[in-house]
């Protein structure tokens, strides 16, 4: 956990200052059903500008569904979502992406045969303006645009320290590295809200430390608001500002890591006392 131990004081104070601001997203009374199954039951919480917001809970608690609601992929049957104060209508995923929301996936969703660089460049597609024909000719504006996009991609490659795999096909990389490339693809679209679905799943301790460091750096350097789902409690408690705890589709806790850690309902859910 050295990644967090090295500079706890400065990062905490920075985020506290940022947290006091307005919510980026408010979720009010969200209920999501799949047929007869209620995945999310009347949940309300908000994500504030510049914070690292974690959603935790046991398996099947509805965390990924919640993230899909936030990203606009699922449309809840009840409740409303306010994005920067305005009621958000039901949207297509690319419309959400244009609003400045980017995400990574629990099971890596990269183009395995393409290089790291090309994968990250795809994250810039929403910012490309030149048409198919102009790109095929690749002169003038299209060329300049490509150069500008490549520069952004290279800055992200530098940020994530993945220069050595720039040209490597993503399929040949280790799991931890692929996760990092996926984070790069999300970052390069310059999101204002970044959604991470289990960014540390399947990683070893060292990879987790690296990833934690990158998440904190993204938050600090780019001022990106981050919402993440994670199983590793140590990581969650170390890097998040506020935590929502879910169990069986319902919200059972919400607050700073310390508040949540001492919450009886949360302890019960995790230790299994309340069930059976």
């Amino acid at each position, binding site marked *: 956990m050295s990644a967090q131990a*090295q*500079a706890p004081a*400065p990062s905490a104070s920075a985020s506290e200052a940022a947290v006091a601001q307005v919510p980026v997203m408010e979720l009010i009374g969200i209920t999501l059903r799949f047929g007869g199954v209620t995945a999310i039951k009347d949940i309300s919480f908000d994500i504030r500008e510049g914070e690292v917001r974690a959603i935790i809970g046991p398996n099947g608690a509805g965390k990924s569904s919640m993230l899909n609601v936030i990203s606009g992929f699922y449309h809840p049957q009840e409740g409303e979502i306010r994005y920067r104060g305005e009621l958000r209508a039901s949207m297509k995923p690319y419309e959400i992406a244009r609003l400045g929301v980017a995400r990574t996936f629990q099971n890596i969703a990269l183009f395995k045969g393409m290089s790291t660089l090309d994968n990250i460049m795809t994250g810039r597609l929403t910012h490309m303006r030149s048409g198919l024909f102009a790109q095929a000719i690749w002169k003038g504006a299209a060329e300049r645009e490509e150069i500008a996009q490549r520069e952004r991609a*290279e*800055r992200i490659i530098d940020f994530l320290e993945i*220069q*050595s795999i720039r040209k490597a096909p993503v399929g040949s990389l280790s799991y931890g590295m692929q996760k990092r490339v996926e984070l790069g693809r999300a970052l390069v679209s310059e999101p204002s809200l970044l959604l991470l679905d289990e960014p540390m799943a399947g990683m070893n301790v060292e990879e987790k430390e690296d990833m934690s460091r990158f998440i904190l750096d993204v938050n600090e350097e780019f001022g990106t608001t981050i919402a993440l789902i994670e199983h590793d409690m140590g990581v969650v408690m170390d890097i998040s500002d506020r935590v929502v705890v879910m169990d069986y589709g319902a919200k059972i806790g919400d607050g700073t890591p310390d508040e949540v850690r001492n919450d009886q309902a949360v302890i019960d859910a995790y230790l299994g006392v309340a069930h059976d």
Partner: protein
Amino acid sequence: MMIVPQWNVSDRTSIPARDDQRPRRTPALTSITTVPPELGTFPRVVQRNATRFAERPAYREKAFGIWQSWTWTQAHEQIRALAAGLLDLGLMPGDAVAIIGRNRPPFYWTVVAAQYCGAIPVPVYQDANADEAAYVMEHCGARFAVVDDQEQVDKLLEIAERTPQLEHILYLDARGLRTYDHRRLHELASVQRCGRERLAELGAELERRSAAASGTDAAVVLYTSGTTGRPKGVVLSHDNVLVTAMNSCAFDALDERESILAYLPMAWVGDFVFSMAQATWAGFCVNCPENAGTMHADLREIGATYFFAPPRFFEGLLTSIRIRMEDASAARRWLFDGALRRARTTGPALLEGRPVGWTDRLLHRIDHALILAPLLNATGLSSVRVGYTAGEAIGPEIFDFYRALGINLKQLYGQTEACVFLTQQPDGQVHPDTVGVPCTGVEIRIDADGEVHYRSPGAFREYYKNPEATAGTRDSEGWVATGDAGFFDSGNGHLRIIDRAKDVGTLANGHLFAPKFVENKLKFYPDILEAVVFGRDRAFCTAFVNIDLSAVGNWAERNNIAYASYQELAAHPKVCASIGEHIEQVNRSVAEDERLFDCQIRRFLVLHKELDPDDGEITRTGKVRRRIVEDKYGTLIEALHDGSTTLDVETEVTYEDGRRGTIRAVLALHDVATVEVAQVASDTARQRSGAGTRGEPA
């Protein structure tokens, strides 16, 4: 970055044009012992370069996927701006400036900028842990530290209590540092900006300090890695370094057209001499890789013409080529083996200008075009005009391989206290088992007990704040002890280093014993990772062998040998038999040596665990700690010498997370292998008794 990057999508255009390969003048080997006073210090040489090599590239660094470059004029401007900025922060003459980071142009500028102000640069190993860094920072008393990024800043803040004299920390990469307390922290670029603004007022003071500097002033303090005890700070003066640079550049005719990749730690004397001293003196370009992981790709792009690497690098490269060839189709392997077999005789002959028949020449041309040139290109060494290796003995077969490919790879011998260069191999006189002739201006003397001593204009000024150690190493006549045992080869007059002087001894029968000589021969085999030879004051030599799990594992897979663990594979009779065969071959080769013929191995065992730095058995840099191994495995050594065939052992091991455990094993002192080895030993003994009369004129 100080220069606005020129973005270009195509990578091909980002590769700098290679320098022309005009024929070069023959080296002038006259001994020069002083530098002209107008060039007596680094800042003055850089100043000369700024006018003489003005628009030629001085530094390149790959950043954001593109090579960014600075000409000598630009580099000089950067250095002066930084020097003025440091002056503005209150850098005083005689202050130490610690430099902690990977090879990057601003760090090389910091070296010269500090010297401009009359201060002493002290590069520190970037991967040193907090305690090691604290020791060096404490000992040199640095008031200033120039570091890479947050990692290094955190390290310095962690040890702040032990280094109260540290006032200012300058960093290159601002990432993650925005919220830190900036009273003592400065971004290097902003210090430079400040210096640039105030250059008009501070320029006079800079010139005054630069003019006051003399060649005998300390140019740098380099801390030796310290395999025994605490590191010592070696003070090298401008004279030491510049005279060495001047002589060594002349020796290999290095000029401003060379290109070098700076990838070895800045705190190591080699990097200081190659990337700082020689580069500045000759005016050639220093290229800094993008990060540690891209070194190989960057080497290929840059096409270095002057290249240094430790033997480990060349061994690793050859192993990766071999493994890839093993997976190639039979036809390709046949082509590769054939080309290489022919190249092994023709390649070195062509390099050394010996006569070669026209059929061999023609075949070599064809081999070169079809196989050798593409292979060279893949290694990134195709432009290398002068290549050196040093630090450890290199297996002659490895050495020959690269020379067969046409790379002018040579060996040199040196140490921090001598600014590296003590002996080096001249072009055309390369013998794999020697380290060459004394460098220009260096006198070498062999003591009665075989230890190598030298006197040289490059010999260090002193150990920093440690006069006792200085006096213990250098005598009143200026002879410096190297701690290595060696002798001049009677045939060609080149120096041969046998081992560390303290490890060299005699067998019970009085014959010379030098373990490393045999160990290096053993370690050449890909399936032997490490070998430790014992025999001092004993009747015969024995060895511990560590197998290389990847190479032997690969072999086991091909031969359908199942194994569950390192221990099981190491104990497999077939593995032991194969190791026995290797030892047999090594013994034949050892028998041919006129002095060390009795160092043949009669008995051996394959250790049940790898020697590990966590157990203190080898150093972090991979050198065997002989005393510790001897203490820990004393019973095994006794068993090898008393003739037992099996032995129960229980060894304590330390896991990577610090927990301790024990490994139990029944070690066979391999009957099969022992018998084979014994036969071979007696075979070779017979051979030797025939050869001995021929090989022992002395």
